[in-house]
């Protein structure tokens, strides 16, 4: 039996699998997270049930099927859902990419399609340590905990990066799994696995609100007021909370020293270099 204990924020997770075919997919996913010997709050199991494979958490059946890829896809979805619920109130999850810059966390907070994954990828390829491409976990101490799930986007090809560029330098490796959708069509999921991961929390230093625009200058960035950013950030929280609570929590958690920028860009690599080379952030 394959067994893995890891931690995301303050939540311990255990995953057990007795299916070699599932383990082969789950292992690279789980390897990204921080090892932990702490007691688990969430215990996922992949085990035989009748003539099928059963995915469960804390003995609650989440999914049953015959395809290892399908089970792995179900595991990913439920892992994220369960974690987000369990992380509150210790951690608030912002829909944001996050990398390490100058010993601090640098967030790209945006809606889907605004370019946060492109910026995160550009940063990782440039040598920045990876924290997340989707879930930035903001603790009550103003630090961001890693949630280093695999980088992924809907299509096999990334609009900004070729596969050869992404694999060069050894900052990313790729994993691929396939599973049938509800109509029996094969869905292929491509995961990009960062090799340089930050495993400890970092103080939140920079928040960038990016917007990819095809016709924008390659990179145009300007500082914005804390208040302007805080009026926008609640919409990027994963949690459904009363609006005044979201604002208050963000205002109390985000350090007074955090700097905020708005960014329009058409080239993720140049945009990342603009952020990286901000005078105050160079170490």
């Amino acid at each position, binding site marked *: 039996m394959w067994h893995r204990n890891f931690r995301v924020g303050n939540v311990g997770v255990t995953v057990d699998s007795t299916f070699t075919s599932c383990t082969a997919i789950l292992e690279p996913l789980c390897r990204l997270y921080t090892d932990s010997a702490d007691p688990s709050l969430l215990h996922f199991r992949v085990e035989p049930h009748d003539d099928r494979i059963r995915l469960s958490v804390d003995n609650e059946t989440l999914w049953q099927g015959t395809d290892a890829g399908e089970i792995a896809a179900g595991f990913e979805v439920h892992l994220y859902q369960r974690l987000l619920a369990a992380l509150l109130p210790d951690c608030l999850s912002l829909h944001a990419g996050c990398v390490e810059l100058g010993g601090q966390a640098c967030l790209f907070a945006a809606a889907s399609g605004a370019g946060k994954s492109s910026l995160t990828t550009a940063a990782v390829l440039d040598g920045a340590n990876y924290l997340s491409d989707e879930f930035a976990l903001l603790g009550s101490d103003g630090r961001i905990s890693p949630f280093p799930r695999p980088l992924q986007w809907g299509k096999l090809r990334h609009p900004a990066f070729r596969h050869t560029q992404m694999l060069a330098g050894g900052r990313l490796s790729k994993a691929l799994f396939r599973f049938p959708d509800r109509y029996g069509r094969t869905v292929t999921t491509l995961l990009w696995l960062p090799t340089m991961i930050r495993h400890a929390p970092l103080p939140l230093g920079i928040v960038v609100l990016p917007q990819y625009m095809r016709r924008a200058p390659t990179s145009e960035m300007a500082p914005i007021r804390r208040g302007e950013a805080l*009026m926008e950030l609640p919409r990027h929280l994963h949690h459904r909370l009363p609006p005044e609570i979201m*604002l208050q929590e963000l205002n109390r958690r985000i350090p*007074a020293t955090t700097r905020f920028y708005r960014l329009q860009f058409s080239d993720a690599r140049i945009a990342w270099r603009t952020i990286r080379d901000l005078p105050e952030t160079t170490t």
Partner: protein
Amino acid sequence: MPWGPSALKNLSDIQVPERPRKKPELVGEEMEGMDEVIYVDTETGSNYSLNIIAATVLELCDGTRTSADIAAIIVSNLNADSERVHNDTQAILEEFAAYGLIRA
């Protein structure tokens, strides 16, 4: 406050209540050291950014004070020019009324 042609009504058409009251669904969050307060309308989810003077005017709208009462409090605290503060207070209240932040 989100300025824009579509957001602004004709201020001359706006009636400021004689004794305005802050909309009860507004919850303020002060930006420490920034002279700024963000208000969330818990009914609509809308956000409003006010400078500290405008926020003070809004908080003084308790349904018992007139525009002149509010201006007088600010004059006494800031030691500012009375006529200017009265005019500014009235202008701020007109904007509040236009955005529905105060009621009769």
